[in-house]
């Protein structure tokens, strides 16, 4: 007899600038509806030129193939800008998906316990 909130929220993004790194903290679901949100977040993260970009997926509870396409776009933008990308907070399932899609070859996957 348990209840749980459903994972229906659209994508939310918050950008934090740290020393030498911009963090894009995502929450909700990453699918086609998140295109504008993620693009705006990356644009906001450009306030620190050349800095690495960390995308925090800890509060993302759903990623589908259209969401993966958005990550590909972000990686393409980051490559163009010469910015390394790392992903934080991926569940085991989405780590597997990042692995089989080879996204993890193009970005560093870090654990929550790793220093930001």
């Amino acid at each position, binding site marked *: 007899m348990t209840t749980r*909130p459903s994972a229906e929220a659209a994508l939310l993004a918050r950008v934090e600038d740290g020393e030498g790194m911009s963090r894009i903290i995502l929450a909700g679901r990453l699918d086609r509806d998140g295109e504008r949100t993620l693009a705006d977040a990356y644009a906001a993260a450009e306030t620190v030129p050349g800095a690495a970009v960390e995308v925090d997926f800890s509060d993302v509870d759903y990623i589908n*193939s259209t969401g*993966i396409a958005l990550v590909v776009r972000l990686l393409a933008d980051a490559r163009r800008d010469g910015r390394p990308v790392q992903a934080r907070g991926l569940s085991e399932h989405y780590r597997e*998906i990042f692995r089989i899609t080879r996204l993890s070859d*193009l970005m560093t996957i870090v654990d929550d316990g790793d220093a930001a």
Partner: protein
Amino acid sequence: MTIIQSLRRTIGLGPRADVGTESVVDVSAPSEQPDREATIEVTEVSPIEIAADDPLVAVLQSSTELVEVERLTLESPALAAMREHGIRLIVPLTAQGELIGALYLGPRLSEQDYSTDDRRLLSSLAGLASPSIRVAQLVQTQASEEAERQRMEQELQVATMIQQQFLPHSLPDLPEWQIAAYYGPARAVGGDFYDFMELPDGRIGVVVGDVTDKGVPAALVMARTHSILRAEAPRLVEPGAVLKQANELLCQEMPSNMFVTCLYGVLDTTSGFFRFANAGHNLPYVRSGGEVSEFRATGMPLGLLSGMEYEEAEGTVGPGDSLLLYSDGFVEAHDPDGEMYGFPRLRSAFSADVSGSELVDRLLDDLHAFTGSGWEQEDDLTMVTLRRSVGASRLGPDQPATPDVARELLDVSIPSVIGNERLAMDRVAEAVAPLGLEPERLERLKTAVSEAAMNAIEHGSGGQPEIPIHVRVTTTDTQVQVRIADMGLGGEIPLGRSEVPDIEAKLMGEQSPRGWGLFLIEAMVDELTTEKTEQGQAVVLGVNLDGGAS
């Protein structure tokens, strides 16, 4: 004589309550008429209002004789108006010591002052007329109150008629479920409602709501809300989406200061799975094994603010469990000392192991014992209870599937609306929950279902809501299969011929960043086949129940 004739023609007194706010009689004979024996001309002027706080009221109340306007030295707007209209004399009308009106008189036609006889005559007239005027006022007041009472009674009848027109005339007859409902209108008729809606896939929608305000306005808003929910629930299915759409429509039409609280849920009567969303309504209670807990979800009431999202929550009503949905008329009822019934009492009363109409009676008895026999119901009372039979089937390790015989867990049609792939995913996850799949295996199945359903919705059915996709889940001892069928509008699924996406080409912009769907499906399941169907085609996803991870 002159004056009496004048008065006969012009007296018209307002009700007693009007004294002080509306003036009474204005009788003024024009001074330019020289012949006092000639035909009398009477000029009626607009009522001169005397405000309740006008000092003239106190003068008239305390006066025992006629009041000469020119002798008064008050800061009185009414007096100023009288002077402007040429009023010379005020004759207070009193009955049982109360000022009930006044006569205003202009100058005599002869331009002479009112004589002592005139004044005596006027005083006598006032003394004789006042009791009759008082009686007339009382009759008028009574008639007015009776008319108002009848109007309110009629309005209540209309409100009740509207209200009852939209309440269910019968309850769903479901195997293994005992359903009971109660609606008790307050005298003023609030805006409570409840409803059951048959959904396309055999599940039922359950709603309990409450419109602010009372009477006809509340009944009309209730009727509109009811209609919207009836129209949107079968189309959108997901409780959060249904409430979101209802909110958008109601925001466009809702009278100011009104809104609707509402709890809408979808019950899978086979599994007991209850998925719901809440628009500011009381949380439902569920009783399981004697313990009562809440199903929690939050959201803004309907009709207040456009653009609201409604969180969904879910829970399972197991065999022997009961669900209670109710309106605030219960918890906000008061006893003679002003104490509120409150949630703890309702929760405690609900913990009793009874069901159906017996439970309804028990809850009402408890409420009435609290409020006492003289209680005048303050608000509508509504409750809906759903109890699942103790002997209802529950899939699980204690009831293993028959070997090698596929058992159906789900067969559902889903409108081809972009985003409904998540609905398909959730429905499949609900259906296979009793099988106890390993978490990682379940996640893979969910991803595969989501991708296959998205492909079917977008391409196979062309994104046309009226052409639904069909999702069927079956299981054997060894494998769960999900079959997703569409109209085949997207052409043949290139199974086994899909290329591994070239991520470098995508990064370079040489390929679309999309195109991961089929690749993901193939990677997530243990078995993947397609079928030709009469209407189009189907993709069948197979996930092994034990081992065999891809």
